[in-house]
């Protein structure tokens, strides 16, 4: 059987298959017997927006921030666990910190200091060394004299130590990197895959000692009363609440787009991710319980208008109008770096597209 004959014989089947694949709205009027599916659009009115902030521990961050400017300062704390107490005959003692290439790192001078008091990696902040205990001085308790100076540039920082300095590091509760210049840079943490490490070289054999704990601590400015900020490192969350409209009663929200303007960025990346979490209770403070992220979007640094899909929020307030407690807009993850975006006050718009649901089969 020739190909043409085969094609002729299959033509009907091919045609029927083609008709089975299309998505034409044939017979759509029958569906409309179950309801009026005219889409409606509604802008909810803004009830309130303001910024809440808090120093949060960022010990699980994949990055270690170091730097300062007029508003912020970030310090990096490290501790090492050495397998031996005394080392002899070493050819080389060096510490290596790998700079993250997904940040626009500044060339930054810094000093290394020995820490007087232990810190808890998963609890430490600028003002606290653990949940229960404050630093004697905010920003960490360390010896005033520096152990060594360094400059962060290129791909990595390599600092060489002598026996005496190694012994001091072994005896200390940790070391802290303190910026000595304006600018910011980001090292990889042990969670980021390339942990800070000390390498001890002896007779062509290198013993790497990875950081046992590493984290950074950040301090930053308080927002003014009328500022709407979101930020990471020093964490700023923007609380936003819209008034519920009874026009939405019993409807299905198909589309809900939150838009707002962004005016000022402080960020050493090309892009960042913005997420939204719904409040599960009426707002009380920064720690008001929230649900999981309901939307997450990557935006470019410099974008002046951001739109987020908030249909889950719209659906929730339609189902539970008395649970319209508002939501937090935030940078995600909150400890990834030291960054901040100023949102344009009054620019918030929540546009909801909805339909009335179909009638279930009735009899």
């Amino acid at each position, binding site marked *: 059987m020739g190909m043409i004959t085969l094609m002729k014989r299959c033509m009907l089947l091919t045609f029927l298959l083609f008709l089975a694949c299309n998505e*034409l*709205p*044939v017979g*759509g009027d*029958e569906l409309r017997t*179950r309801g009026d599916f005219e889409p409606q659009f509604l802008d909810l009115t803004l009830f309130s927006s303001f910024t809440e902030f808090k120093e949060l521990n960022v010990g699980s961050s994949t990055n270690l921030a170091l730097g300062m400017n007029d508003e912020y300062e970030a310090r990096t704390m490290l501790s090492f666990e050495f397998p031996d107490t005394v080392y002899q005959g070493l050819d080389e003692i060096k510490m290596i910190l790998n700079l993250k290439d997904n940040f626009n790192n500044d060339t930054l001078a810094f000093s290394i200091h020995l820490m007087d008091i232990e810190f808890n990696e998963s609890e430490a902040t600028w003002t606290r060394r653990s949940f229960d205990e404050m630093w004697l001085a905010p920003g960490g308790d360390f010896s005033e004299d520096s152990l060594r100076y360094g400059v962060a540039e290129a791909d990595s920082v390599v600092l060489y130590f002598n026996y005496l300095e190694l012994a001091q590091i072994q005896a200390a509760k940790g070391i802290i990197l303190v910026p000595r210049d304006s600018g910011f840079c980001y090292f990889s943490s042990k969670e980021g895959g390339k942990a800070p490490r000390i390498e001890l070289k002896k007779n062509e054999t290198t013993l790497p000692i990875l950081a046992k704990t590493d984290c950074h601590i950040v301090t930053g400015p308080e927002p003014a009363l009328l500022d709407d900020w979101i930020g990471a490192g020093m964490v700023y969350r923007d609380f936003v609440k819209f008034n519920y409209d009874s026009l939405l009663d019993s409807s*299905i929200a198909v589309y809900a787009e939150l838009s707002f303007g962004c005016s000022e960025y402080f960020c050493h990346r090309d892009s960042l991710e913005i997420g939204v979490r719904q409040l599960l209770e009426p707002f009380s403070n920064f720690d008001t319980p929230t649900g999981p992220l309901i939307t997450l979007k990557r935006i470019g640094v410099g974008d002046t208008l951001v739109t987020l899909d908030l249909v889950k929020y719209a659906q929730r307030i339609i189902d539970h109008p008395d649970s319209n407690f508002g939501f937090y807009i935030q940078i995600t993850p909150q400890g990834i770096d030291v960054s901040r975006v100023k949102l344009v006050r009054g620019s918030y718009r929540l546009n909801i597209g909805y339909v009335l649901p179909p009638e279930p089969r009735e009899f």
Partner: protein
Amino acid sequence: MMSILVAFLINASVFSVNGIGEDLSVFRAPFLKAINIGQLGFTINPEYTLLAQDGDYRGIFWTNPLKFAISAPLLGGFSIMAGNLERFSQNYDIYVRDSSLQIHALGEGGIEEIYAGINKRLGNFDIVATGSFLFGNAWEIWNYTISGYTIVDTFLYRYRGRIFNVGVKHGLFSVAYEGFGQTRMIKLEQDTVMIDLAQRLTVGLYPRIGQWSLGLLYGHSFWNNDNYDSPHRFRIQALRGPLGVALMYNPWYIKDVNEYGVDVDYAIPLRNVGSAQLRMTIALRERDGVREFKFAPQLTLVLNELFARRRKQ
């Protein structure tokens, strides 16, 4: 490719979106074709439906569940029967487009039936009574899309019910009545609605003209519900040898849905086994400018005295 696979798995009468779906039991009589022998029957019934409206066409492939039927003679002129059917189909697959909204609604499932009955031969009369258990699940998935955002809404239905049939058949006529039908519809596992199914009277005349065996069937359904029509249905059939032709007029209980159809049957005897019956049904359903062409080939395989023959061996 996925849409083709889905289309093969679902039924799609666009009118099934209403009521409790397409009634697949019209013109069905409870009578046995052969009361003196045991029979085992299987029927498969794929379908292709072509929707047409305003010059647009859309086709759907689908197949009904396999039907199974068994009957066996007993002593004293009694025979028993049992089997399964799909009673109401709630399958559909419809798209709606607006300037800013697109809806894709998909319905699947329906009401199934398992029946059992008894037939008594009294002289030239067969008297039959059957009872059916109705059950099934159905769900509707509504996808709404606005500006690229899509959400899904789902309805779930569960059915449990029963219905009964009685009938009398003579060589020249038959009368069958179906009634006492009820099914409980549980919506979203919350609301329960008791549905009174239609009563149905079917009358048949079977004259012979020369070598042609004719059949004239009239059926009337009585719905106790103002939202639905109580339709009059007609079927005229002619049989000669292995060939049969039938014309049908089948208005639905859903208002203004009319169906016209043609059946062409061809029976093939299977030596020492039973018979196979091939049927092609072509039907047109329409309402308000929506036309649905149904092409449904059907294969029925009937095995005669399967167990008796094994005993003889």
